[in-house]
């Protein structure tokens, strides 16, 4: 197994480091998440990502606090980024997210403020104060588990995170169990994704032990999620099941403003 991130990921991760350094200098809290976050989280994660042959990320995702939004905006502007107007005009409607464009190394930068609102909502307000360049491993994992239409890359990130964290070592599993025990929709999507990850990882022989460990831990985590206590709200929603949509439709930010008169799937 290689020890560090692949050389091709260097410019992207260098840019992430530059942003993290600058935010620290300005007293702002910024934590790397997403695929770059998994790559940067720890050496074992990085090695597992490489072993699984995951395509290198092209963009950066961060978690940050909403109260620092204006200062973050200034920081990105000072560093030569331009804000995506498609988001600027939507923020008053409750979109807690910033998107920045315009850098060669990172084609797009997403900054989620206080909560990740995608297929499901994962709130992280108050959880970014621990040091380190990335969000906690549990939040990195939840960011992947909440995806309704999961990709092969996401499955590899899940596999890498699980392979790098034996149960009880560095991954705040009670947080995962707590959130999935309160929100039936998140529980359904997360367990579905874990089952898929278990199946796919078990078949990726090329990744050797990493895939096998990832598959076994995905199965274990899914079992513990199933057995964890559930809230009344969870049980009430469970009685409805999948007859009612349990996830949010996620638009495609790259499509904004790109269409002709024709309609595009959002």
């Amino acid at each position, binding site marked *: 197994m290689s020890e560090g991130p692949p050389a091709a990921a260097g410019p992207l991760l260098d840019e992430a480091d530059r942003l993290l350094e600058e935010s620290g200098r300005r007293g702002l809290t910024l934590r790397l998440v997403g695929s770059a976050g998994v790559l940067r989280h720890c050496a074992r994660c990085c090695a597992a990502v490489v072993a699984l042959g995951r395509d290198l990320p092209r963009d950066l995702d961060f978690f940050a606090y909403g109260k620092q939004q204006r200062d973050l905006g200034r920081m990105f502007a000072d560093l030569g980024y331009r804000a995506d107007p*498609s988001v600027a005009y939507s923020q008053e409607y409750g979109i807690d997210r910033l998107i920045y464009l315009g850098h060669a190394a990172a084609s797009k930068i997403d900054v989620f403020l206080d909560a990740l609102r995608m297929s499901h909502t994962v709130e992280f307000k108050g959880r970014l104060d621990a040091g380190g360049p990335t969000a906690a491993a549990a939040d990195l994992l939840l960011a992947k588990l909440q995806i309704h239409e999961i990709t092969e890359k996401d499955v590899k990130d899940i596999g890498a995170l699980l392979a790098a964290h034996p149960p009880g070592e560095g991954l705040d599993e009670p947080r995962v169990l707590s959130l999935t025990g309160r929100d039936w929709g998140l529980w359904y999507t997360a367990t579905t994704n874990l089952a898929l990850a278990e199946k796919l990882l078990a078949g990726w022989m090329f990744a050797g032990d990493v895939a096998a460990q990832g598959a076994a831990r995905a199965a274990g985590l899914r079992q513990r999620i199933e057995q964890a206590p559930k809230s009344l709200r969870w049980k009430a929603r469970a009685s409805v099941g999948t007859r009612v949509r349990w996830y949010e439709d*996620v638009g495609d930010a790259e499509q*904004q403003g790109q269409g002709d008169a024709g309609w595009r799937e959002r």
Partner: protein
Amino acid sequence: MDSTEPRVVGVPGVFTRASSGLVRQVSTSDTIYYGAMAITIAYMVFIVTAWPGYPGSSMELATLLVVIGGSLLGVVYALFASIYPRSGGEYVFLSRVVHPSVGFVISFIQAFWYAFYFGLNGAFFAIYGLAPLFVVLGLQWHSSDLTSAGTWFSSHNGIFIMGSLMIIFIGFMVYRGMRGFFRLQRWAGLFAMGSVLLTIVLMILGSAHVLHFATNFNAIAGSGAYAAVSRAASVPGFSTVATFNFMVWPAFSILFSVNMVSFSGEVKNVRRGPLIGIVGSMLVTGVLMILLMVFGQGAFGTRFLLAAPTSTKVPVPPFLNVFTSILGNNGFLTILISLWVIFVIPFALGSNVIYSSRAMLAWGLDGVAPKQFANVSERRHTPVFAIVTLVLLAEVALAIFTYTSLVAILSGFLGFAIAFLVVCLAGVFFPFRHRQTLERSPANIRVAGMPLMAVCAVIAIPFVAFIAYRTATDKALGANAHVSLIVNGILIVIGFAWFYALRWYRQRRGEDVDRRFKEIPIE
């Protein structure tokens, strides 16, 4: 298949994705609340007051016809909104479907009249909400101070001051952002709904003679006053023509849930959200209005309602909420009953300023208005320049309405009716002229092989055209007064002149304005 649509490849069970996107935050329930507020059930107050002017008409039937015709119009709007999920109202789709200049002029007229009603609704808040509440409370609690306050609220200065405060408050709320506005709207909507249901229950009790309106009215107006008022009116036989003619009044209220297209780009469920929001709010509010009409006649008497607006023997404002308060004969009930007027009218102002400011924002983005209109506040992310402009215009409209007799309640309706008609016409031709666009969109719904949009538009056209015709010819409405006609004419001329002047100016600077109308704007 669209290149960015998720699709299964390679490994079964997984998808590909170009990038993670945005999850819109305006829920379908918020669109229903918004549509209901834009309809403004509080307008029932003057709809019922206008009824005696159409002898032989059936309020309920006229309202039902408007709900049906309005729903067809609403379907056309909702389908356009799902094809062009961008904020800015009719401007966005008419400028791309018909012609940029037509889209701009229609939007310009609409924005002007919505700004006008932003001001007038401020006045309505004092006239139909505060004044009746305080007058009736004064009578019920034997407080001359409350009665005096009610009288002041209906004075010129009272209307202007309270209207101005409401304009500024709503302007500030919209400046703070739509998330907070929708939260407030949800609560106000729930209280207003409760208040309407309480009003209907009291009316049912009055109709069943459990509560006695005549006795309570006589206690206020003097012995035998109820009979004297009722004697002054006769109940003519049913008239189909009068019923059709009366439709303009409920139409002035019900059709406005289409205003939701001003923020359709932000709706979570863009496939069906606008359809449910627009048509759903029309159906719900229409049913409530019909119930108020039916049970209002049962509780107060048809003759009394017909005579009250012009009778000198009625010592209180001749409004439905006032009569229900007298029927309830309890100060606390009076406060609760007033909520469906007091909590709804502010959000009518909100829908007015939201429509206009979003239209201005879209103009600014397309370059057919000064760039300032497209600027959003760094702190609140709202189009602050447009909002401030609209607050100032609303203050002017409020002053004109309060201190002059130049304008009437329905003065602006002709401008709206023209816009509705143009949208219907666009709805007839769009499915055939932009077939591919329709077929790729969630609006690709067919009825007996025909596009639903075209079917609804074809049926809605006679309805909307009749409303427009009546608006242009019914002198009682005030929409065909010289001032209104002249203003509409000027708006059309200014709109076209503005569009072509800006286009010429931008082209001289090397900006290709026409290209922007081949794309849907950013959002």
